[in-house]
């Protein structure tokens, strides 16, 4: 239904300086040039960020391609009120990466475990404000003191915005282990920050 109406609506003219929401509107109206601009704008940083979670460049490339194909088909579902377009595309891409990891059924070839960090970009919160300057802040010091395993767990679940199951697939450990690691990491962080 949405797709049907989206097709009818005349999208605004777009160019390389249009914002993401405008471009997604044009993608929903099946305009490939809008998808191309989005790809040009987002594929490079997605590649770097996904590469920190999976050391196999082919899987990363595949996840990016799948993600943009999914953006093409689902652009009509995007609502600017629900969050930033970059965050929306990131979520799609990281889910694609996890499902292709699951499909290949290998133990996820992680980039160095201590590199598996990220942030959940959707939330506008005090947590973000702290994270922006995390390098210099107390939280940065506290995170640096966590063991790599605990940090990876909390990064995947709390900061990358993955579900426990997705985090388990990404990290190649059982779901129960993810849960206990997240609990231990949170307890330690509370202790460091107290």
């Amino acid at each position, binding site marked *: 239904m949405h797709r049907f109406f989206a097709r009818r609506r005349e999208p605004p003219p777009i160019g390389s300086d249009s914002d993401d929401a405008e471009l997604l509107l044009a993608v929903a109206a099946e305009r*490939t040039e809008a998808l191309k601009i989005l790809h040009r*704008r987002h594929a*490079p940083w997605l590649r770097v960020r996904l590469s920190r979670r999976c050391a196999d460049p082919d899987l990363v490339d595949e996840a990016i391609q799948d993600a943009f*194909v999914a953006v093409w088909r689902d652009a009509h579902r995007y609502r600017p009120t629900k969050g930033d377009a970059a965050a929306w595309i990131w979520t799609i891409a990281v889910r694609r990466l996890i499902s292709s990891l699951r499909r290949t059924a290998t133990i996820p070839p992680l980039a160095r475990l201590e590199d598996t*960090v990220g942030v959940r970009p959707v939330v506008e919160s005090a947590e*973000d404000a702290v994270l*922006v300057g*995390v390098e210099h802040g107390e939280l*940065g010091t506290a995170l640096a003191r966590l063991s790599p395993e605990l940090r990876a767990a909390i990064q995947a679940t709390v900061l990358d915005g993955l579900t426990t199951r997705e985090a388990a697939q990404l990290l190649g450990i059982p779901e129960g282990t993810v849960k206990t690691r997240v609990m231990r990491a949170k307890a330690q962080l509370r202790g460091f920050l107290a």
Partner: protein
Amino acid sequence: MSGMSEMSAVWHPPADLVRRYATGGLDPVQVMSVEAHLARCGGCRTALPYEPEWLAESWERIEDVVDRPWPGLGVRVLCRFGVPEHVAGLLSATPSLSRAWLVAVISVLGFAVGSARVTSGDPDALLAFLVVAPVLPVAGVAMAYGRAVDPAYEMQAATPLSGSRLFLLRAVAVLTVALGLTAGATLLFPGPLGASAAWLLPALALSLGMLVLSGHLPPLLAGSLLAAGWFGAVLICDGVLHDRFLPFQPAAQGLYGVAVLVMLPLVCLRHRRLAPGEHQ
């Protein structure tokens, strides 16, 4: 382009830090800091170094998928079950799998079940069902292909998939649907299942006969001949031999069974001959 994000993030990581993030030379907490910033700062995201060749190649592959027409629901379901995409596309364009044919089959079956239920298992209603049911798949197949019924005939006549192979594919699809629907109707019939399922072997025999004959005759003619033969046999049993249910007695069922066993290998051979490349 993302003015709002840039305003909310006052601090920008130095260009050197961003470059080292891309090449993998940062410690975990620094990576985290950069990623947190990149997530909300479009300006810094575009400042990330990238390989133009990689970007172009990635886009080419996306464009390739995106430019293809999005297949219909039927095709996607078939592909999920392992049917090759070109075959799925042709099957979903089968004229007799159209809504009109399905509606016709379902209403005939519905009528048969309904009348049997209303008359609470009247032998006449059962007989009517048993006589008509074996012809439904054949009728569907007769309409599956040909100049007279297929709007896409001209186009397919010019495609590399041969007419006979296409016919066989579609015929099997139609038979499967028709047999499935009739089997469903059988379950709704009052009375013992054995009696109302007596159409199955004649239906299979007629369907296979259809597949065998259609190699030599136009489908419409083949279908008409088989239907005429079947109805003729039923009338002879009733009028001459005075046993209306004779075509469904165990002896007759045995004959259908033999016919099925004889024709099945013929059809399989023909299919193999028509599709030499598609068998592992």
